[in-house]
């Protein structure tokens, strides 16, 4: 019998397993012994307080400290309580973590750091500094791997890979996904980076989406199917390394591309994906590439207001219909 667990529990299992496997793995973050997101709470009971460290409110400082600890042989997993704070700590992430190995000419210099960008995305009325989808900012810098699962199965497998990776990995956890249930095997498994998942097969449009937005796309897929439009949904799972092959295979079949993200449309990840497709496989495209993303404003503070800013299922259905003609 396949067992179902939540996204949060899947992450917790990944962390526990890796901490048992390698005593150099340890956790840092604000309030993680109690855990705002239900992922790391109580892990100090098994692993001890000094492996589950409470940090002060010093994001740039404690990510930098994690870099230093990683340089000499430990494997820290840092939690940022909200992924928005990646921007606060951007210097440590972009200027230091990402560049450190290259800066020192490689060799024994490496930064095996996992940054769990928790509480990402919009949907709980948490306001403009606690609701952003910032992945587009961070795919721009060489030296960072960007991982963004949408299911519990992917969350566990990808987090284990992230922890074992000897490079800085930003691991995004959308706040609306923590409670989502899914089948997760009890046996040990990992998921490699750079391998997309085909969430739904279809012949008419290739729709690329990730994280929570991907679930909205799957809902849209059901509605579109009722109108005889069958979309193929590709979830890249990692934005860098990015799986071009799976995407290109799909485009060769459908000849249409729509990209859906909860991040702002302007300068979003969709722009990069559209650019890759336009550059490398334009002959297979029969309709304009459509990007769907959040509107060009900061996110309003209320749960009511934020709904008008991020893409809705209706927006996605509408966008798909626009490329079918």
């Amino acid at each position, binding site marked *: 019998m396949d067992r179902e667990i939540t996204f949060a529990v899947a992450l917790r299992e990944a962390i526990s397993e890796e901490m048992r496997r390698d005593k*150099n793995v*340890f956790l840092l973050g604000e309030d993680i012994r109690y855990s705002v997101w239900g992922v790391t709470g109580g892990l100090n009971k098994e692993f001890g307080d*000094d492996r589950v*460290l409470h*940090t*002060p409110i*010093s994001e*740039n*400082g*404690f990510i*930098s*400290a*994690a*870099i*230093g*600890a*990683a*340089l*000499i*042989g*430990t494997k820290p997993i840092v939690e940022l309580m909200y992924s928005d704070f990646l921007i606060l700590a951007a*210097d*440590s992430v972009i*200027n*230091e973590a990402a560049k*450190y*190995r*290259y*800066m*020192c*000419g*490689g*060799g*024994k*210099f*490496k930064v*095996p750091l996992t940054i769990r960008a928790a509480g990402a995305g919009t949907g709980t009325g948490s306001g403009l500094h606690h609701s952003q989808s910032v992945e587009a900012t961070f795919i721009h810098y*060489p*030296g960072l*791997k960007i991982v963004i699962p949408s299911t519990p199965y992917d969350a566990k497998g990808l987090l284990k890979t992230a922890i074992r990776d*000897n*490079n800085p990995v930003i691991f995004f956890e959308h706040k609306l996904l923590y409670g989502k249930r899914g089948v997760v095997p009890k046996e040990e498994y990992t998921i490699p980076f750079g391998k997309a998942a085909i969430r739904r097969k279809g012949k008419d449009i290739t729709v690329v989406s990730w994280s929570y937005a991907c679930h909205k796309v799957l809902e849209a897929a059901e509605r579109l199917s009722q109108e005889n439009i069958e979309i193929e949904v590709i979830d890249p799972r990692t934005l860098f390394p990015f799986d071009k092959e799976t995407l290109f295979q799909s485009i060769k079949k459908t000849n249409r591309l729509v990209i859906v993200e909860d991040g702002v449309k302007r300068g979003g990840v969709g722009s990069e994906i559209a650019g890759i497709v336009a550059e490398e496989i334009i002959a297979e495209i029969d309709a304009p590439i459509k990007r769907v993303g959040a509107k060009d404003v900061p996110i309003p503070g209320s749960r009511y207001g934020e709904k008008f800013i991020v893409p809705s299922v209706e927006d996605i259905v509408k966008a798909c219909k626009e490329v079918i003609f």
Partner: protein
Amino acid sequence: MKVCFHGGSEIEIFRIKEKIDKVKYSRDDLVSKISPEKLLFMYKNMIRTRAFDNKLKAMLNKGFSISEHSTLGQEAGPIGACGALEPSDYIMPYHRGWAWAIGKGMDPKYLLAELLGKRTGYCKGKAAAHLGSYELGILGRSGVQSAHIPIGTGVGLGIKRLGKNNVCIVFFGDGASNNGNFHEGLNLASIWKLPVIFFCENNSYALFSSAKDTTSVANIGSRAVGYDMEGYIIDGNDIISIYHTTSKAIARARAGEGPTLIETKTYRWDGHNAIDKIHYGGYRPKEEVDSWKEKCPIRLLEKDLININLLDKVKIEEIKLKAEKEMDIAEKFAVESEYPAKEEYLTDVFAC
């Protein structure tokens, strides 16, 4: 400290006043506590550092493009501090000069090759000035002022997690002590009682700006109080004082007693870097520069070592000549070395 009483006939308000204690030592006593080998080792390193600095100046005048920030006049700090370390300890350095590089064991040949961007350098030519050496425990040299401070704190965290006995010395200047990174880094090192020594070389200027205009404290060492750690203010041109103070801090760190902030009062004879032509009479008064030049750290140690018969005029000349020769060889090696192949610039972003 009990502050809240909920009423009563008296109201207590606490006012913070800074208290700095002065402790005196006998010079001869402190000198006698350092082995002759170590004293000569540090003296030679200061001479070599100065020779390297002068070599860089000469090469810049010849037209080479090298990132340099002169250490002339500031040799004692990093040489004295590194002198108190074991080879397996770590340093997290900054942009000012190469005293820490030579002090921690870098060979001027490969150092200079790296500065020129040649593949024979410590970082295969890819770092140039942002170099490090894993083997020597020199863990990189970031280009963002102060960014390395909390990273150094993290090295201390790693040392503790790995159960090692090592320490990490973080070098920085007065300017960097005003950045948030300094404050976060010191707070973290303090709460976790990490084996880190924060070594601030206060030369009173950050580029063209005087510390008087930018720094809220007259003594950066005072900031130790704000972070509940040991703090010292010492003569940055007296290597005996530096060695003694740093050794104490290292011993405390190894014993698990936590971090120390050491402020050295020192001065750079030259500009911030080669393009700074206004450091004498411009943003710094001529009398100030001249008076500091009288306090040469090398001459001071020379006096000590002549006193105890470890040096004489002949030996001094020998050491200086040897250093100059060493730097000439380094120049030749670096200049004759090749650049990396183009493809090499595309490697080493990620580790396996």
